[in-house]
C-alpha cells in the first residue's frame, strides 16, 4: 500500500530558527528516496501566504495524497496546514506535522551535524506515519435547543434569562427552597449600593414571567447520560417527584459557600465576634447596639479564610484570595458610616487588613471608607491579630506595619471577621458531571484566559463562583460568557467533533470492561454485536485521550491518527541510519 502513496515533504527554514542549526537541504536529500515521497523541498517560511500557495499548487500538480510539513510546534501551526491541505483538496487528516524547531534545532544549537541527522530521523518517521493515514471526516452531532442551568443564584438566573431570550428552552434547577442565592441575605451590596433581596426578587419575577424558562426549586440533578448536544437528565423535584429532561448543554452555576472560621480563629466563638454576613444583617436591620448598649468601637479582620498558609492548625489552607471580601468589608464601612449619620451615633471603625484589594473602580469604595474616618491597620501573616475578651470587652492586639513597633491594643465592642469564599460541597453533582476541580476545589476551566467557561466535558459550561471566588459583577459576566458558548452551540443546531478518537475492533473485543474502567470521560458503553458483548465508544464523548489502549488485553482498541501500525512504522523509520 505504501508504494502507491504520493507524499509531499516540505521542510521549513523558519527564517534561520531551524536552518541555522539543521541543514535543511541535507534533510530534504536524506528523505527524498523514502517510500511514497513524490516531492521534497525547502521553504524559507512554510507558514507564509506565498509558500502555502506554492505548496497547494504542488499538491494539485503532483496529485499528492499525503502531506508532511516539518516546521515549528503543532501547537502553533497544525491547524494552519490542515486548512491549507483542505484548500488543496486533500483530506486534512492525511497531513502530518513534524516539529523540527522546538524538538530539534532549538534543542541542539551546539551540534549542527547531530541535529541534521535527528531531523532526518524525525521527518522519515513523519513520512512513515503519513503513508498509513486514511481520510477521516469530522463527527457531526445534532444539538437539542434546550439548556439546563444548575443553580438559581444571581449568576444562574441571569444565565437562564439570557438563554431564554435567545429563544431556547431553559430548565433552571435550584437545590434550595427559593431562588436568589446569597443575594437574598446580602443586605446592601457594593459598590453601587443595591439591596440584595431586591436584585434577586427582580430577576425572579422576570424568570417566572418568561415563557421558555422552567424553574424547579427544592430540586437536584440525580442522573445524567448522553453527550454534547443531547444529554438526558433526571431531576428530583421536591421529596419524590422526578422529571426527565433532554437538553443540548448544561450550565453549572452552583456558587460558593462562605468560609466557616475554626473555633478560636481570630476569637471566633467569643461573645461579640461575628462574621461579615451577620454584620450585614445587623446593618440591614438598622441597629448599632449589642445587649442594649450602643456600639462605639468595631474592629474588622480581613483575609479570614483566604490567602492562608499551611500550618499545624490549618492543614488544608485556602491559598487563594477571595477577591470580593475587601470590597464587601470597605463597603460595609461606608454603609455603617451612613447608618451612624442616620442614627446620630459615632462608631470608631478599625479595619485590620493584609492588603486592600479593591481593584479597578472598586478603589473608590476603599477611598470613601478612608475619607469617612475608617482606620486601616495593616498586619503581616507572621503576626496575625489576636482577639481576646477581658472585663466584658473585646480586645484586639495587632502589629500595624504602618506604625511599626510592637503590637497595638484596640478595644472593641464588636469584632467582624471578613470571611472569604469556599467551594460548595456538591458530591452528588460532581460524581454525575465529572468536571475536573482545581486543587482549591473549585471547578476548572479548560484555559484560564482563552477558554474560561468551557470544561473538558463537551457541552458542560461553568459560570460564576463555582469556578472560583468572584464579585457579583464578575460572576454575572462569567455567566453570560457561558451563555454565549451555550447559545453558540445550541443555536447552530449541530457541532463538529474531532475524529481522532478510539475505535474498537469488535472481532478481537471480548468485553472485559478494562477500557470502561480506564476512561475518565465515560465514553465506553457495553453493546451487543452479533452474538457477543463488546465495547462501544460513544464518539461524541471520546476525547481520543488513549487511556483505554494499553489496558486492553487483546489489543482491540486503536486511536485514530495514532494507530499501532502507524507508531510501529514511525519507530522503524527512525531507526534507519541517516548518512550525511
Amino acid at each position, binding site marked *: 500500500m505504501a508504494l502507491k502513496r504520493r507524499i509531499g515533504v516540505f521542510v521549513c527554514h523558519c527564517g534561520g530558527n531551524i536552518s541555522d542549526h539543521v541543514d535543511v537541504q541535507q534533510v530534504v536529500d536524506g528523505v527524498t528516496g523514502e517510500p511514497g515521497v513524490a516531492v521534497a523541498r525547502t521553504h524559507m517560511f512554510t507558514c507564509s501566504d506565498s509558500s502555502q500557495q506554492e505548496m497547494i499548487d504542488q499538491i494539485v500538480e503532483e496529485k499528492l495524497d499525503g502531506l508532511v510539513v516539518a516546521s515549528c510546534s503543532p501547537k502553533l501551526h497544525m491547524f494552519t496546514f490542515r486548512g491549507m491541505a483542505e484548500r488543496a483538496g486533500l483530506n486534512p487528516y492525511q497531513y502530518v506535522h513534524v516539529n523540527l524547531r522546538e524538538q530539534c534545532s532549538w534543542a541542539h544549537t551546539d551540534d549542527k551535524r547531530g541535529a541534521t541527522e535527528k531531523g532526518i530521523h524525525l521527518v522519515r518517521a513523519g513520512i512513515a506515519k503519513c503513508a498509513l493515514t486514511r481520510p477521516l471526516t469530522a463527527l457531526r452531532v445534532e444539538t437539542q435547543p434546550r439548556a439546563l442551568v444548575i443553580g438559581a443564584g444571581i449568576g444562574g438566573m441571569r444565565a437562564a434569562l439570557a438563554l431564554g431570550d435567545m429563544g431556547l428552552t431553559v430548565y433552571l434547577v435550584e437545590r434550595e427552597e427559593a431562588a436568589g442565592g446569597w443575594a437574598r441575605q446580602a443586605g446592601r451590596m457594593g459598590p453601587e449600593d443595591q439591596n440584595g433581596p431586591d436584585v434577586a426578587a427582580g430577576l425572579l419575577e422576570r424568570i417566572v414571567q418568561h415563557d421558555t424558562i422552567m424553574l424547579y426549586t427544592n430540586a437536584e440533578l440525580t442522573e445524567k447520560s448522553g453527550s454534547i448536544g443531547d444529554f438526558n437528565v433526571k431531576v428530583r423535584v421536591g421529596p419524590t417527584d422526578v422529571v426527565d429532561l433532554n437538553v443540548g448543554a448544561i450550565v453549572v452555576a452552583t456558587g460558593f459557600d462562605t468560609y466557616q472560621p475554626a473555633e478560636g480563629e481570630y476569637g471566633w466563638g467569643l461573645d461579640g465576634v461575628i462574621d461579615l454576613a451577620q454584620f450585614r444583617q445587623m446593618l440591614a436591620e438598622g441597629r448599632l447596639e449589642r445587649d442594649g448598649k450602643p456600639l462605639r468601637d468595631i474592629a474588622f479582620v480581613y483575609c479570614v479564610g483566604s490567602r492562608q498558609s499551611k500550618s499545624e492548625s490549618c492543614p488544608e489552607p485556602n491559598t487563594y484570595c477571595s477577591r470580593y471580601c475587601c470590597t464587601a468589608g470597605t463597603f460595609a464601612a461606608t454603609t455603617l458610616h451612613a447608618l451612624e449619620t442616620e442614627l446620630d451615633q459615632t462608631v470608631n471603625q*478599625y479595619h485590620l487588613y493584609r492588603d486592600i484589594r479593591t481593584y479597578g473602580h472598586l478603589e473608590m469604595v476603599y477611598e470613601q471608607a478612608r475619607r*469617612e*474616618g475608617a482606620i486601616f*491597620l495593616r498586619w503581616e501573616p507572621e503576626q496575625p491579630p489576636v482577639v481576646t475578651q477581658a472585663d466584658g470587652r473585646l480586645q484586639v492586639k495587632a502589629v*500595624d506595619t*504602618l*506604625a511599626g513597633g510592637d*503590637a*497595638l*491594643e484596640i478595644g472593641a465592642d464588636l469584632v467582624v471577621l471578613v470571611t472569604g469564599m469556599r467551594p460548595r460541597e456538591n458530591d452528588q453533582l460532581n460524581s454525575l458531571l465529572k468536571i475536573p476541580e482545581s486543587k482549591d476545589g473549585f471547578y476548572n476551566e479548560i484555559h484560564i484566559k482563552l477558554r474560561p467557561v468551557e470544561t473538558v466535558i463537551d457541552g458542560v459550561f461553568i459560570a460564576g463562583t463555582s469556578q472560583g471566588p468572584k464579585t457579583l459583577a464578575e460572576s454575572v459576566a462569567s455567566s453570560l460568557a457561558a451563555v454565549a458558548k451555550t447559545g453558540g452551540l445550541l443555536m447552530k443546531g449541530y457541532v463538529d467533533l474531532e475524529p481522532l478518537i478510539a475505535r474498537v475492533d469488535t472481532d478481537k473485543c471480548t468485553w472485559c470492561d478494562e477500557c470502561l474502567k480506564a476512561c475518565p470521560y465515560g465514553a465506553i458503553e457495553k453493546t451487543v454485536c452479533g452474538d457477543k458483548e463488546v465495547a462501544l465508544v460513544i464518539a461524541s464523548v471520546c476525547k481520543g485521550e488513549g487511556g483505554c489502549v494499553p489496558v486492553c488485553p487483546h489489543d482491540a482498541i486503536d486511536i485514530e491518527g495514532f494507530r499501532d501500525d502507524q507508531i510501529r512504522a514511525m519507530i522503524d523509520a527512525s531507526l534507519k541510519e541517516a548518512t550525511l
Partner: protein
Amino acid sequence: MASKVDLQIAAKTRKLGSGDLDKCYHCGICTATCPLSANGVSFPRKVLRNLQLGLKDRLMASPEPWLCYYCGDCSESCPQGAEPGETVMAARRFLTSLYDWTGLSFKLYTSKAWEFGAVIGLGLLVVLAFVIFHGPMVTELTPEGGVQLNSFAPVHVIETFDIVMGGFLALFLLSNVFRMFLHVMGDDRKKIPLKYYFSEIMTLPIHFATQRRWKDCEDPGLWKRHMVLVFGYVTMFVMIVGFLPWFQTEKIHPFWHPQRLLGYLATAALLYVTGYMIVGRIKKSRLIHKFSHSTDWLFLILLFLTSLTGILLHLFRVNGFPMSTYVTYVIHMAILVPMLMIEVPFGKWSHLAYRPLAIYLHKVKQKAAAVK
C-alpha cells in the same frame, strides 16, 4: 506595654491645625521627599500614623516632630492633599501642650478666648501697674537733650521685675523641658550611662545657636531668615533681661556705641523678618504660609509691635519728647510682657528649648545604641 489606639487624639490635633488625617494612605512619598528624614528618624509619615491612631505614648517619646523645620516640600508632593508639613507642625503644638503640665498650653492653642484674653489681660495689668506705680513724669530734658526715662520707670525696679519674670519663664519652661526629657528617654533613662550625656552635651548649644540641620532643607533661605530673627531676638533678650541697667540708660551714647548699634541691628533684624513673614502669610505666597494658626499670627504681630514700639521709644527718648516716650514705654511693656509670658513657656517659642533637646537626646540614644 502595648500602645493603645485612641482615635480621640486625631480630633484634638485637628483643633491644633493638623491636615485631614483621613486623607493619608501611607504611600510614604512625604518621607521620601524630606531631605532631613533618615534611617531611624523617619518622618513625616510616621508622625502622621501616630496621630491617626492616637498613639500618645509613642508620640511623646519620638524626637521626629522636632527634627522637622517645615520647608513644606512634603505637603507639595503629597498626592492626597493630607498636608503632612502642617500636620507635623500641629504635632509640635500637641507635644508642647502635652509637655506643659499646667494645661494652659492646650487652652491657649485651641481657644481664641483664652489666647486673646491672656494677652489683653496681662497687657492691662502692665498698664495698671504703671498707672499706679510709675515714677515722676519729668518734662525737663537731660543735658544731652534726652528724656529722663529712669525717673518714670526706674531701671532698678524694672530690672527686679525682669528677674522675677525671667525666673517665672525659666520655672515653667524648664519643668516642661524636664517632662519632655522623661518621656523621650522612657525606659532608656535608667539604661543609658551618664557619660554619654556628657559626651554629646555640645549638641545643645550648637543646635540652639545655629539650627544647622535646617541648612539641609531644599531652600536655605528659610534657615537664613530664621538665623537673622534668632540674632535679633537673642540679642534683645540678653540686653533686656541680662543687662538692663546697661541697656536702659538716660545717657545718649554715640551712634557707634555697642548699646545703640546692637539695638539698631537687632531691631532691624526683627522688623525685617517679622514684616517679611506677615506679608508672606497675608499673601500666602509660600507653601509654609498657606495655613496660619491664630497663634502664628499672634506671635508675629506681637513681636513686630514690640520691635516697632521699642525703636519709637528710643527715637522719642533721644530726640527729647518726654510724654511720647513715657506713653510708648508703657505700650511697649504692655506688649512685650504678655508676649514673653505666653510664648516662651506655653507657646511657639518653647521650641527654642525643645528642638535642641530633642536632637541632643536622640544623639545620646544613638551613641548608646552604637556602643552596644
